[in-house]
């Protein structure tokens, strides 16, 4: 079987996915959500909200996280912050103690037990809140983000609301790549929230109705993907998860490749283990066909396809390289770089190339829409170029790593 024959099904599925995105983006539920804004909820009628910040060895960032929460444009008597030091071994405890006397803040210390245990303690403390949110201690919120979140809860039937995440001040090459990737994720989350297709309520600034958390029970270890597990639990119980497009939250992306691979391996193994084992009933579920027939199956296909296409591309690249190297010694090297007159005849246009072009172009458009609709600051174009150059090379590393972890039953590390 030729490599093209293996590639065609995956690129067609990708094209179908992009087409579905387009149609759903233009459908009335997504349009209505784009028109919804913070002005829906006046300041005087804002509900009681608690934000829980679980911290583990975050001394460098947690102060900024808390300060961004204190700067939220929200009545101070209706917002409480619960900071929980989950047995940090660095100076995190001392940093959160600096905020302990603030009237809005409760600072707690506990032995290390995992993020989900810290989150559950926070939920126990947030007894008077109507909505409970979480913010990772390496993330920072925009001042109007909470009002955007609360406004989204005005939609009937929503049990949880996610925010629009982006990378905080991208510096390294890998952070720049993630900036473009997160811009795409903003659009994806917006589109799939409009048809209740979200399967993760990310750590940075996702909110839940307190009544729903009480109904569903505490967070679980869930293969280190407690945010994914809770979202799947919500979906299994028939709840809906929304998205506040303009609720901006900025997170510190991993700076080095090993850190990035470790983070993504945790996410991907969490997805695989939850979907394939703990929440297998969501696959092909008629109760939520968006998740059951489209998003979860395509998530699995994307992992397999990503690895397969990477190996096909790698094989073809290696073959071409070997061929070039074998010819390199035949004639002077300068001959290989001789420019030939342009002719349309030699344009390397094939079905795979053209569909790949359409997919790439549409991805760029989604990224641009994600950035602009959420009003995320920063420049997309330079980061987009980094994304083009790197993502196809580095993403397969964590995809392969994740498959290997799940197949061998390896315990995935947090950091």
């Amino acid at each position, binding site marked *: 079987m030729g490599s093209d024959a293996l590639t065609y099904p995956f690129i067609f599925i990708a094209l*179908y996915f992009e*087409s579905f995105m*387009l*149609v759903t983006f233009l459908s009335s539920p997504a349009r209505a959500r784009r028109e919804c804004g913070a002005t829906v909820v006046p300041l005087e009628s804002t509900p009681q909200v608690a934000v829980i910040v679980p911290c583990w060895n975050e001394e460098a960032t947690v102060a900024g996280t808390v300060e961004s929460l204190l700067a939220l444009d929200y009545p101070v008597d209706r917002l409480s912050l619960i900071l929980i030091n989950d047995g940090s071994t660095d100076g995190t405890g001392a940093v959160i103690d600096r905020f302990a006397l603030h009237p809005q803040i409760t600072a707690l210390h506990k032995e290390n037990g995992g993020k989900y245990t810290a989150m559950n303690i926070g939920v126990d403390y947030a007894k008077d809140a109507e909505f409970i949110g979480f913010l990772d201690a390496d993330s920072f919120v925009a001042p109007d983000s909470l009002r955007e979140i609360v406004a989204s809860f005005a939609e009937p039937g929503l049990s949880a609301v996610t925010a629009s995440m982006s990378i905080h001040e991208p510096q390294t090459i890998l952070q720049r790549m993630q900036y473009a990737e997160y811009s795409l994720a903003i659009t994806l989350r917006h589109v799939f929230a409009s048809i209740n297709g979200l399967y993760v309520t990310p750590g940075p600034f996702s909110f839940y109705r307190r009544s729903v958390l009480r109904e569903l029970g505490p967070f679980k270890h869930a293969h280190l993907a407690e945010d994914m597990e809770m979202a799947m639990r919500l979906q299994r119980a028939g709840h809906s998860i929304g998205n506040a497009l303009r609720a901006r939250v900025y997170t510190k992306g991993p700076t080095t490749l090993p850190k990035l691979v470790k983070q993504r391996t945790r996410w991907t193994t969490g997805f695989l283990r939850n979907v394939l084992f703990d929440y297998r009933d969501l696959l092909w579920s008629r109760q939520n*066909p968006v998740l059951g027939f*489209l998003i979860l199956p395509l998530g699995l296909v994307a992992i397999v396809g990503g690895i397969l296409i990477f190996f096909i591309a790698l094989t073809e690249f290696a073959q071409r390289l070997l061929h070039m190297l074998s010819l390199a010694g035949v004639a002077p090297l300068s001959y290989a770089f001789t420019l030939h007159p342009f002719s349309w005849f030699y*344009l390397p*246009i094939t079905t795979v190339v053209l*569909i790949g072009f*359409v997919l790439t172009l549409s991805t760029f458009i989604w990224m641009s829409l994600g950035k602009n609709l959420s009003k995320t600051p920063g420049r997309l174009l330079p980061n987009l170029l980094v994304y083009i150059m790197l993502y196809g090379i580095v993403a397969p590393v964590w995809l392969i790593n994740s498959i290997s972890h799940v197949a061998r039953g390896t315990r995935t590390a947090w950091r």
Partner: protein
Amino acid sequence: MSLFTRNAIIALVIALGITGTIIYAVSYLNRARIAELSTIEDQLSIDTLSLDTQFSLLEAAPCESSATSTTLTSELSDLGNRLSYAEDQLGSDNQQVIRLKEQYSLLEIRDYLINKQLAAACGTKPVTVLYFYSNKKGTCADCDKAGYALSYLHTTYPALRVYSFDYNLDLGALKTLIALLKIDNDLPAFVINGKHSSGFTSLADLEKQFPKGALATTTTPTKK
């Protein structure tokens, strides 16, 4: 019908529409490539026939047509490059590619013969390489290298006349040429100014096969 079902169906129609359009566009482009090759071949066919006719008409002074012959050889080389690219894109078993290769081989043989006659009549000594290759998998490990070396030599010394032939092409005239030159299937095989050799080791070894000084001045006129 639910929103999801409606969107899923519309998305399928869009995806199929885009795929169909792209497949049609690529097919159209490939047809255009074949048409372009066919047009070039038709033109070259006319030019070759014209040269042949000129040669017959000017039996007394045939050397006046030699400039045209050189131009034709260069155009043949360009056609060969395009044909090789089309073969890569469409596959060596594509019937249209095979038909075009047959026409191309005939043009090459015709050009070779005319040039041979011109050289004899005008007293020139052009350096001519007949190159036999195979692109059947496993039959000629060094054909890529040999073809690349000859392309380099032809680019560097434009007056060098290189005629490439697919050894396995099922064409009567080519089979006759192979039989006359006694080329066996030890490929790549070369006939450089009538001298036979086979196999490829390096550009330097290939250059040694050429007459002394031929690669510096490939068309040395001699007085009769």
